């Protein structure tokens, strides 16, 4: 029987067959899943956000739901609603789409802040409270939310504190020339999605999440993470440095990355690999700086000493 780790790399390979030339993003998304966080994908329409999430849902074997956010959406549209059942003469709860293992939220910034925060609360707590009753969400619970940052009219951009709820933010970008050609010649990826085998199941994913927690972390790497955080707090180009939660997120993701790299110990290389998706959306450039998050991360990577 193949081990969990072998199944994991098989799953990655399968997604790679569908989403061509995006190995790094696939690994990042996988990392986010194993670290137990949620993923925000920020990109133009039509570069494969949906394909990524569908492929993910297929190979991980998780229960999959998809919600398209619109501006008239209400919290109950996501969380669920109690409906009066005339037969039993009682209110009966109809769970919303959030009651699933794998949720794709399209265009999260189209919904009103009220709806957004209902979702984000569910994401953070792992449970839903409606009408005075608390219901746990299934495990594992993984959300991929997408947003289109370039056309913001009629949207409610996520505030910084909400962005912080996403463990990682990635963008897919255009595929390279070779992959795109292969894609154009190879036919519709949506069709290929249907043929994807499920390589993992929810129990395996939970076991892998446990494995992430067991990755060995030596103090020299922790010091490196601390130096990164300290740098972000001191640098003049950064308005607010990374929070302690961001530091924990960094460590968690780096450990998941190490596992994905096939190691049971953490290297500064892992921290560096996940720093941009973990930190870029949490860094607020100073008012007089015209650097964006990615540039600030690049600066941190270049200037913070890896070795003590």
């Amino acid at each position, binding site marked *: 029987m193949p081990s969990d780790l072998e199944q994991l790399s098989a799953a990655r390979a399968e997604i790679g067959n569908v989403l061509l030339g995006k190995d790094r993003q696939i690994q990042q998304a996988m990392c986010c899943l194993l670290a137990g966080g949620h993923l925000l994908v920020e990109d133009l329409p039509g570069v494969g956000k949906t394909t990524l999430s569908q492929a993910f849902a297929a190979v991980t074997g998780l229960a999959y739901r998809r919600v398209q956010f619109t501006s008239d959406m209400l919290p109950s549209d996501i969380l669920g609603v109690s409906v009066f059942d005339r037969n039993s003469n009682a209110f009966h709860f109809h769970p919303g789409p959030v009651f699933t293992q794998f949720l794709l939220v399209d265009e999260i910034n189209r919904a009103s802040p009220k709806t957004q925060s209902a979702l984000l609360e569910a994401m953070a707590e792992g449970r839903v409270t409606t009408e005075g009753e608390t219901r746990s969400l299934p495990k594992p619970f993984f959300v991929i939310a997408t947003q289109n940052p370039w056309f913001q009219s009629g949207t409610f951009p996520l505030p910084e504190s909400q962005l912080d709820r996403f463990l990682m933010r990635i963008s897919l970008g255009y595929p390279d020339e070779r992959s795109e050609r292969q894609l154009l010649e190879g036919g519709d990826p949506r069709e290929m999605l249907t043929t994807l085998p499920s390589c993992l199941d929810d129990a395996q994913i939970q076991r892998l999440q446990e494995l992430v927690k067991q990755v060995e972390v030596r103090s020299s790497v922790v010091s490196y993470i601390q130096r990164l955080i300290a740098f972000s707090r001191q640098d003049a180009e950064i308005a607010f440095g990374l929070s302690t939660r961001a530091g924990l997120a960094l460590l968690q993701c780096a450990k998941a990355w190490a596992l994905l790299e096939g190691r049971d110990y953490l290297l500064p290389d892992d921290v560096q690999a996940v720093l941009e998706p973990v930190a870029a959306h949490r860094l607020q450039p100073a008012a007089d700086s015209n650097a964006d998050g990615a540039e600030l991360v690049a600066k941190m990577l270049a200037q913070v000493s890896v070795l*003590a």
Partner: protein
Amino acid sequence: MTRTSAPAVMWLLLAQLAAIAPLAPTIPIWMVLVWGAVAWWYWRIVTAAWSFPSALVKVGLVVFSVAGIYLQYRQWLALEPMVATLVLAVILKVLELKQRRDHWLVLLLCYFVVACRFLFEQQINAVPVAVLQLLAILAAQQMLYREKPAIAASVRLSALMLIQALPLMLFLFLVFPRIGPLWSMPLPSAKAQTGMSDELRFGDIAELSQNAALAFRVRFEGGQLPPPSQRYWRGLVLENYDSQRWTVNRMGRLTTPPPPPLQGERQRYVVTLEPGAHEWLYSLPVARVNRDDIRYAGAYQWLPKAPLTGRLQYVVDSVLTQPRTEASNRVLQRNLRLPGNDSPRARELALQWARQYPDPADRVAAALRYFRDSPFDYTLKPALLGRDNVDEFLFESRQGFCEHYAGSFVFLMRAAGVPSRLVVGYQGGEVNTTDNYLLVHQSDAHAWAEVWLPARGWQRIDPTSTVAPDRVALGADSMLSAQQGFLGKSPLSLRRFDWARDIRLYLDSVNYAWANWVLNYDSERQSGVLSSLMGGISVKRMLVGLLIFGALPMALVALMMFKPAWRASRREPALRYYHTACRRLARRTGLRREPGETVAAFSRRVGEQAPEWAPWFAAFSSAFERCQYRRDSDALSQLRALKRPKKTQ
């Protein structure tokens, strides 16, 4: 407020005492009592028995101490009251020490007090004392920051710090620009010690002769010392007489005649005067001194243009055999003047000689004969003389020291019509056989006469030598040591023992070398040393060099403070190996790890850019990673085995 521990306070007070105590000969003795009282007071404060003095009490203390210093010295503008004020301030400051940095300040002031001592004492024996003082202060500084008192460790560290400071000290000693004093402050005691003054009464030199202090040292070039009878160190020529005292002819000093040309075999020697205020210089006639700040003042005297202070060294060329023929009518007239009508009997005797002997040389011989044939007594304790002092000396008491003989002789000669003058200086000197130089003490002070003989010029006549020939042949102290009381209580009385004399002379030669090589290292010698070291150096270049070399230790300290990588690598052997290997690799390939570059990333880059080193460096990096980032006990030994760069062809 950071409380200071009791041992630290104890050390602070001891360091303070160590800094102050060697100044005891300079400062008033009651200051030691003040120190004791303040120390006890502060100790009571530290042990929380008493509280800090109020502002009123402090003002009172200041007023009392300032008044005490004034009563002691009666003046402010001299070095000694100033140093006393400093010491008192350092002592009283203790009553204000509340925080650790106050203690620190007092200890820094102690360094200044230590340095102040060198204003008064520059002999080599001051150096070991200063080293002990510095050790005490350094240890006290450490005690401020030590959790537990560790005396041995503190002293050891202090010694280490001193040794580390030594190269910098030597460097600064060699190259730091010697800047002249911004103002000069004559030392009151220094003036009293110079001995000679520019006027002479009977009894002055006898008093000076009891002073065992060193006046100057002379080193003759070639090591050839002149015979004792030639060692007449001329200082001042006293030409004016006012019936009680002989004084310098100040008018004559205003002119600057050209120095007499030297004819004959020259003898060159270096005179080193002991510290003090020097208004005139000593030399053997006929002398010539080539120095910008020293001028010729006529009558074969050499004077500084302005009084020179401190230790003074000058080079003299002398022709001992050259006749001294410098004389004008005015000079001869002046040297015949005998104003007043005191001592009529002596004048009468001289007139009798003048009538009897037409040749001045015969009159001189007659006077010397008179001294020899009458029962004169050469003594340090002559009787006090009244108004007709020459008469009383020549015909009644007949007890006198050299100035009595020389003064009376000049009096007689002038009365007899022979131009003559009184010369004061030193005669003789002690030969230091260890290093072959001459030591001249204050006790060698002497007065003699010079008479003008038309055929031969100025002639030195020493009437003392007719009365007491041993004075010139053996020197003052050996001749007089038989006499009661002479230097009886001073260390010089040890001269009677040969071994003691040898030790004393040996120590003096050490001190002389110290004076020569350390104390006299002035800007002239400095530029000499520097130009021989680096060939022609300007002050500007020297300063630049100084800045660079002074900045280097600072830069090192800054590096140690600001480069945590360097500090950490000292703690962790794996990191040290890695950094060392990276440095070696950088020397061979020029590849350097960027700060943000991980070990693996750098190893990959080395693989791309310097493939011949890659196999070794990949293995080394992997061992280092295992060492640093996971629990692998074998990795360190692997790392050590791989630490030398290896090239693969």
